[in-house]
């Protein structure tokens, strides 16, 4: 796999649960998660996101997030890592699920992005 996935949510349990859901259909895809604040409260953490990027075995990562404020920390982390990060404004669970299934199937990035297109929403 040359593509990995990072999941960012305000709630630690959501990222853990979503990781389980994705692992079912994408057991070989490197998935790393960043849920909650540094104190495990509800919120997001740039540090945790950066850690999730660096823990991911790949150097090109598809990133998904739940609510708008997570995106800001994601983009801050994106500016601070040397890895290639793609952030998608799509339905969080459904988008991450779609991407994971397609990465597992060996589909290339442009085709994945095409399939994510209809899942775009205002976030």
């Amino acid at each position, binding site marked *: 796999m040359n593509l990995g996935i990072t999941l960012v949510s305000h709630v630690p349990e959501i990222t853990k649960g979503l990781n389980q859901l994705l692992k079912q259909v994408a057991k070989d895809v490197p998935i790393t998660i960043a849920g909650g604040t540094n104190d495990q409260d509800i919120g997001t953490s740039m540090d945790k996101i950066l850690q999730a990027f660096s823990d991911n075995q790949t150097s090109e990562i598809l990133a998904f997030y739940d609510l708008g404020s997570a995106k800001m920390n994601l983009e801050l982390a994106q500016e601070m890592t040397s890895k290639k990060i793609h952030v998608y404004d799509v339905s969080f669970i459904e988008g991450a*699920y779609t991407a994971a299934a*397609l990465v597992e*199937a060996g589909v290339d990035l442009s085709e994945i992005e095409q399939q994510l297109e209809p899942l775009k929403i205002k976030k």
Partner: protein
Amino acid sequence: MGLTVNNLVEWMNNFATKIEQNKQYLSDLDTAIGDGDHGFNMSRGMSAVSQKLSTMPDSITDAFKQIAMTLISTVGGASGPLYGTAFLEMAKKSSSTSDIGELLEAALTGIKKRGGAVPGDKTMVDVWTELVPEVKDHSLTAAKIDEAVAHTKEMVAKKGRASYLGERSKGHIDPGSQSSGYLFKALLETEGIL
């Protein structure tokens, strides 16, 4: 002779055996284009059904209802509500007829309504749509069942988990179609129903 409580139970036990024997294969099919659990789901469901039917139901309607509720409660995946709805519709229909063709037709209508799939979407609906008319025409054969299942291979999934793969779902048999194939095979093998 037609459908009786006895041969209905025999049909289900035969179906359960086929599922048991092929559960790894069904899950492997599901691994290719889904989440890899279809065989385990159906095996959990059908062994519960066999267990349930070990106490002989009072009537065909009663039997169908028990099968339906057991599948709904134990399967866990999409196939649970789908097969469950199929048997629930057969239970309803069985108050007015015991003709297996009519019962299966009601089941198919239920599956389509429940899942919203149409023929060509690469789901169990494809197999049912091809085979229910064969049952009604008394022309069902093992070869036709195999063919109907094989037809799903070249389809692109539009419903269910496989649909997330888009074009990539091509080239694999749909797991729910394969398990439905076993249901029809078991029916074919059960003397007296068709």
